[in-house]
């Protein structure tokens, strides 16, 4: 099992690049879904003790919509996609072709639509990585929550924390051109699967 604290700067850069390529594809998919330009920031890679991971979120106790998927295949781990609640409402408006601002609360259909967005973005992200590492990556059925983001991350920490005390997270922030939607895409690779990924990227010994 890789201790994420021992990753070299070259390995960190390689993983960031993986995140960058994945996020670029996810942004293109989101752009096609809503018919607007989507911008992404350079991905941030954090290696943190369990109790500090929740601090990665800008506003940990604000009401957010979270879409969670677990990953299987050559890269196992979790994905959490976060939108501020109001931004999720705007996203639903754009998806459904309604005027932005008309949705005030999420209906079950809206929730399904958001889960579907989560699936599509995650698949785009993963497909890009899968091509890079030459192996398929499979996301689970998505789950949706709206609540404090801090309390959504605890599920991911539970999964990873069984084996480790330090967690690696690759996070990319994206924004729709009119700034009605901002979101965060967070990938938590399982340390057990990092070795294989670093090997296929050719940086396992660098």
């Amino acid at each position, binding site marked *: 099992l890789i201790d994420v604290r021992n990753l070299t700067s070259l390995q960190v850069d390689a993983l960031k690049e993986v995140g960058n390529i994945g996020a670029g594809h996810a942004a293109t998919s989101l752009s096609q879904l809503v018919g607007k330009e989507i911008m992404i920031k350079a991905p941030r890679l954090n290696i943190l003790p369990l109790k500090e991971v929740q601090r990665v979120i800008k506003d*940990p*106790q604000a*009401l957010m919509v979270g879409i969670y998927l677990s990953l299987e295949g050559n890269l196992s781990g979790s994905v959490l996609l976060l939108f501020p609640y109001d931004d999720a409402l705007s996203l639903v408006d754009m998806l459904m072709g309604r005027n932005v601002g008309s949705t005030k609360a999420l209906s079950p259909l809206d929730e399904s639509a958001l889960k579907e967005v989560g699936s599509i973005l995650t698949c785009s992200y993963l497909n890009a990585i899968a091509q890079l590492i030459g192996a398929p990556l499979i996301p689970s059925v998505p789950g949706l929550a709206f609540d*404090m983001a*801090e309390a*959504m991350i*605890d*599920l991911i920490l539970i999964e990873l*924390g069984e084996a480790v005390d330090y967690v690696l997270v690759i996070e990319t922030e994206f924004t729709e051109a009119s700034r009605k939607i901002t979101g965060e895409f967070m990938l938590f690779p399982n340390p057990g699967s990092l070795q294989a990924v670093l090997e296929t990227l050719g940086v396992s010994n660098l």
Partner: protein
Amino acid sequence: MSEVVNVEIAEMKIGHNPDVLVTSALGSCIGITLYDPALKIGGLAHIMLPETKMAKEGANPAKFADTAIEAMLEGMIKLGAKHSRIEAKIIGGARMFSSASSNPLLDIGTRNVAAAKHVLHRKRIRLVAEDTGEDYARCIEFSCFSGKVKVRSLKRGEKEL
């Protein structure tokens, strides 16, 4: 002056009157409070998983319901608390994500609550209140002065246990 003591995920702290032990954003994790009302000594653990056997050796005891309760009990008794007076409350253990997935991880909250209850029963500690399960996150403030636990949530407002 009461001191506010923050308990992070996989941490456990013991306080005296008038300390207030707080932990934020319990999703599937649970908060377990132990309290000796005579001495006004209280403990709060923010645990992640049901049992130590799920972990490697040398693991942090505050991650797991069984070892966290044991360590907290031991620490409180060292400070003079009496086992027979100690009462417990459990908060959290929600299922945060609605999903058609059969991933057992999504139900870890339920298993955490069950494990905590089992350990309390085995240790003969009375469970006097709980606010557990459902689908929402909770933040708690546990007063070592009153033994009361204030539970805050975005979805259901505030309540006191």
